[in-house]
């Protein structure tokens, strides 16, 4: 069907799931992470910044304007909350932390300029961004200047593979797509799936690609691939084509803003098979746009409100107190985590400069975060986190996401392996 998949995977060559690489930190100037055999992470080039006059500047790049504003705003709120928590817990003795927020305009060029601005403002480390395209720009600027970058929601697989200054607190697309493919094939027993991609979103393109690869590897068939563009007002063409292909389920990798109407329209025209998706689905708005049609569908998420672990419940409580409403998207939690990881690393620093911070970040181990336990040590910047598959249920006091299965990447193969739900089971 898609003869060009082979070439498509060109993009992901170099996607070697290195887990054996010891994380650098011992001696950054002599190569840092590159001691591992499979790691291609080059040590960052510049000397970075350091704390000045007792003030540590941490930069945050977020989409304050443009079409990714909802996610950008949540990430800012999350990061500010994490900083407030950190300060309440004592902060770092003798230092004040200054959170410098810059707008990316939701475009890579804007993100690049924002990062450059932060670096010249003296940011020791940068947190951000939500989308992969923007993060790549930030990562490159940071790499040149020698400033570490902690990405919030950038799931693009290749992001952390080449530069040792890049970290993230989310799982990569290769894992997320794999999780949904594994879930579809094994847990739901599906063999023929249609794929619907938002062709404007790098996130959606990447996620669909990774889903398709794993699903085919497992033995499934992709019966049809259709594409739409973010901001489109009708999806009838795509849905008609999908319906004719008679799939057993549809993997829809876009954002919740379009997924709701898509699923509702599909149901209205009699296409009632389950829909599956990624973390872009996470917003209660999906219930008002998708209506009853969306209930019972599944998506992959970082955390769920139903998780009764103390970290999550504490986070939700504080969020409600500070902002008077529940987090709008999953980026609230990830923003919180990214900031928490950065601040924790900062606390382990001695000299409060970028190189020190990078090394401390690369040594983060077993940090309890809202979106799970994060270990960056030995993971080349991408944590080996578990991912949850959640089912959409009617809005209850704890939200609308019922955790169904949890998957953890296998340390050897990198493929998703089912693990107990643990505290995420809720109730």
């Amino acid at each position: 069907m898609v003869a060009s998949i082979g070439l498509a995977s060109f993009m992901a060559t170099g996607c070697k799931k290195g887990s054996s690489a010891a994380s650098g930190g011992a001696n950054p100037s002599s190569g840092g992470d590159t001691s591992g055999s499979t790691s291609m992470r080059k040590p960052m080039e510049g000397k970075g910044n350091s704390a000045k006059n007792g003030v540590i500047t941490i930069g945050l790049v977020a989409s304050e304007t443009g079409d990714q504003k909802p996610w950008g705003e949540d990430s800012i709120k999350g990061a500010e909350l994490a900083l407030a928590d950190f300060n309440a817990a004592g902060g770092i003795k003798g230092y004040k932390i200054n959170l410098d927020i810059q707008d990316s305009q939701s475009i890579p060029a804007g993100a690049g300029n924002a990062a450059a601005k932060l670096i010249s403002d003296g940011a020791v480390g940068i947190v951000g961004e939500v989308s992969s395209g923007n993060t790549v720009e930030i990562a490159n600027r940071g790499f040149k200047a020698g400033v570490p970058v902690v990405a919030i929601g950038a799931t693009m697989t290749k992001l952390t593979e080449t530069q040792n200054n890049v970290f993230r607190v989310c799982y990569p697309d290769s894992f997320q797509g794999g999780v949904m493919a594994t879930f579809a094939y094994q847990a739901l027993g599906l063999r023929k799936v249609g794929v619907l991609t938002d062709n404007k979103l790098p996130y959606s393109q990447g996620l669909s690609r990774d889903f398709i690869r794993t699903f085919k590897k497992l033995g499934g068939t992709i019966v049809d691939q259709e594409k739409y563009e973010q901001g489109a007002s009708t999806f009838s063409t795509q849905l008609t084509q999908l319906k004719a292909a008679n799939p057993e389920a549809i993997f829809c990798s876009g954002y919740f803003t379009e997924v709701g109407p898509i699923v509702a329209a599909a149901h209205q025209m009699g296409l009632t098979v389950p829909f599956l998706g990624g973390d872009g689905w996470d917003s209660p708005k999906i219930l008002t746009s998708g209506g009853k049609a969306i209930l019972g569908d599944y998506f992959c998420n970082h955390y769920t409100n139903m998780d009764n672990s103390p970290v999550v419940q504490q986070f939700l409580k504080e969020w409600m107190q500070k902002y008077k409403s529940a987090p709008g998207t999953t980026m609230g939690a990830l923003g919180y985590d990214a900031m928490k990881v950065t601040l924790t690393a900062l606390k382990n620093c001695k000299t409060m400069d970028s190189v020190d911070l990078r090394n401390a970040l690369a040594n983060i181990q077993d940090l309890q975060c809202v979106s799970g336990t994060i270990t960056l040590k030995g993971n080349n910047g991408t944590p080996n986190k578990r991912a949850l598959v959640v089912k959409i249920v009617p809005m209850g006091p704890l939200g609308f996401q019922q955790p169904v299965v949890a998957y953890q990447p296998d340390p050897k193969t990198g493929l998703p392996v089912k693990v107990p739900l643990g505290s995420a089971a809720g109730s």
Partner: protein
Amino acid sequence: MVASPPVSKSNPVAKSLVSGILSAVGCVALAFLVQYISGQFLSSYANGLVFQAATFVTLAVSLNIVNGITGQFSIGHYAFFQIGAYTTGALSLLFWKKFQGAANVPMQEDIWIVLMMFFGIITSAFAGWIVGLPSLRLRGDYLAIVTLGFGEIIRISAENFTFMGGATGTKIAPEKTVVWLAWLLAFAAIGLSRNLLKSVHGLAFLSVREDEIAATAMGVNITRTKVAAFVIGSAFAGAAGVLYAHQQTFISPDLFKMDGSFIVLTMVIFGGTGSITGSALAGASLFYLPEALRELPPVPFASLVGIVLGLIATIGALKRYSDQSHAKTSVKAATMIGIIVVGIVFMAILGKLLSFVPSISAHAPIQGSQLRLVVFAVTLIVLMLFRPQGVFAHHEFSWKWLRSVLARVLPKQKEGLSS
């Protein structure tokens, strides 16, 4: 490369050639000087801005050739910019590593980028030729929409171009901010447009803008002229795209959204249609404006509402006054300054009053960065309302022009002061 002063009767050719060569050398020297200064004394962020400013100057000046000088209303200039960037993207993906291995010479990155500029110019000029052809039949807004459509087709093709990563985009191999090359390109664009306008050929371009029928009756091949304008304009945009790609280090279709074309178009009109100086200055300043606005502090919501209401009232009053008053320039200027002062006071009072309204004062303050593009848009509208012909109108900067402007303004001011 840059043109000489008006030709005098004593051996104009030799004189012009000498001054031409001198100015070309001067441009190269200046470009390297800019590179040196910005590399030595500015942060990497500011260095990036210096580079990007040159890119936008090139874009604005090259669009001015199509839009301002030849009068062909093109609103898809970013397409050529993107073609340049994607050309170097593809070639660098395929061959940069090999080149790097084969030719280990100093400045090899710069050499590679110059080489890529050559290819970028070829591909984008070819695209410009393709887009220029329909201009044979289309006029005004119809041509505009075709160029817009062409831009969208290019962007959508890039989204589907998996070799370059589709919507995700791809990394560009030699990462280099070549400030000198960017400025040299900008100087070249300025110089070439200026040379063009100084020649009989340039008059042909202008005549197409002014009156196509009269132009063709005077023997101007309109189609050829329009296509030439598109080819020249797009070649510069393509070259700028190559440089931009290597500076951005990562290119994706997102970088080349339709808004970009609008902004470049805005630069041209803002500077004054047809004015090279205007385009160049507007290109640099309109590029810098949103960046400068990064420093805006957070604004309390009440003040913001006050500012919005006050701004509408002030602009309305100013516009009304400036349209209807026939007072002397100096009196007019003084009154307008007065109106602005009153307006600011009004905004402040309004903001203060509004802060007592509970639902408004409870609103979270607005981050400065959220206001950047709003301020940008307001600047556009206000400037167009008060100076629709653009800042420079059709004038070019020259010392003579500056003197004549000063001569016009200064005595009047004295007069105004004495009366």
